């Protein structure tokens, strides 16, 4: 979508950018260009509502440094915020661990065995950090 975007530096100006969510990256383009101006990796980030139709993305290691986005409507803002919060690989990993655990409790079987990945360290419940 085309959104207004403002970088984290002091005194940065709101610019129109074509913003595209691809897996766990948020790409942004000048509206008439094919190559992206830049990208944000959406891991360990926080999406916060700033105004009724605006939100910001900041990263856990520096929460005051915010990338601001202005949407066309509150509905669009909510839609983007939801999508961005679900976009990280870490979120999917947690979901996978959760589902695996639930299925195991209900059926007594490990659903990851069919994929041959049940032993992988990254899917163990102990690795889940809030």
């Amino acid at each position, binding site marked *: 979508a085309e959104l207004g975007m403002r970088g984290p530096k002091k005194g940065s100006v709101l610019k129109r950018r074509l913003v595209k969510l691809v*897996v766990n990256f948020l790409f942004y383009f000048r509206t008439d260009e094919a190559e992206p101006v*830049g990208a944000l990796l959406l891991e360990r980030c926080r999406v916060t509502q700033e105004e009724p139709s605006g939100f910001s993305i900041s990263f856990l290691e520096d929460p005051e440094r915010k990338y601001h986005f202005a949407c066309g409507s509150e509905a669009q803002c909510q839609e983007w915020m939801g999508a961005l919060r679900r976009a990280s690989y870490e979120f999917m990993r947690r979901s996978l661990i959760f589902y695996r655990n639930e299925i195991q409790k209900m059926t007594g079987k490990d659903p990851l065995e069919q994929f041959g990945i049940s032993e992988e360290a990254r899917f163990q419940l102990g690795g889940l950090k809030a």
Partner: protein
Amino acid sequence: MKLNERSVAHYALSDSPADHTGFLRTWGGPGTAPTPSGTGRRCWFVLKGNLLFSFESRESRAPLSLVVLEGCTVELAEAPVSEEFAFAICFDAPGVRPHLLAADGPAAQEAWVKALSRASFSYMRLVVRELESQLRQARHSLALHRHSSWKAIGSHCKPQAPDRRSPGLENGHSPSKDCSPVDSVEERGSEPAGQGLAEWQGPASLFLDRRQSPAFPETSYFSTLHNWYGQEITELRQRWLRRVWGSRPAREKQDGP
């Protein structure tokens, strides 16, 4: 192209689980010849999610390179002269050279190829979707099973209630409606569990339902499930009470939540 490099580096070095780590020899990188030659450069590699980082050493604080593992396949490769255990990350995109890497031994090579093949976001998404659908089915069968056990318990009370209840149950959480248990509870008018953590979403809503669920899986999901089953048990009980003309259902055992 700009990238939020500082944050990316933080993620690389953070204590979030690494999916695979180890030393590999690499030939890519600035200042190297266009065709692989020599023994390559030995770097410390860290795979996190769909991102492969390389570092000069295990103690380095800044990554040397990042490869995003989307739209690629991993294949065993013909190593440069006298190099064994090599493999390549090949990209779909035109004009992008395969990324050549070599492990220290056959076990490491196999482990890396496996790990990298499964690293993509798309693969992860596939697995999560599959598990979601399995969980939905498991919940559905569990609910039907509970009906059979309620039948057995109430058999001296002539239970027709459970039979008639089944269609109701279907409405409550039929798979075709794509509802998570949180939403089923909401539809019955009982309060949704989990006021919880506003910024996080329960994964139950990830693909099943576009609406946001405030429930965080680890805690409030269970109380939601309890509310949900508890509701059904309450209704069933009321019907039994009506049928049995007020005689106390002394032997009624709740194996619910």
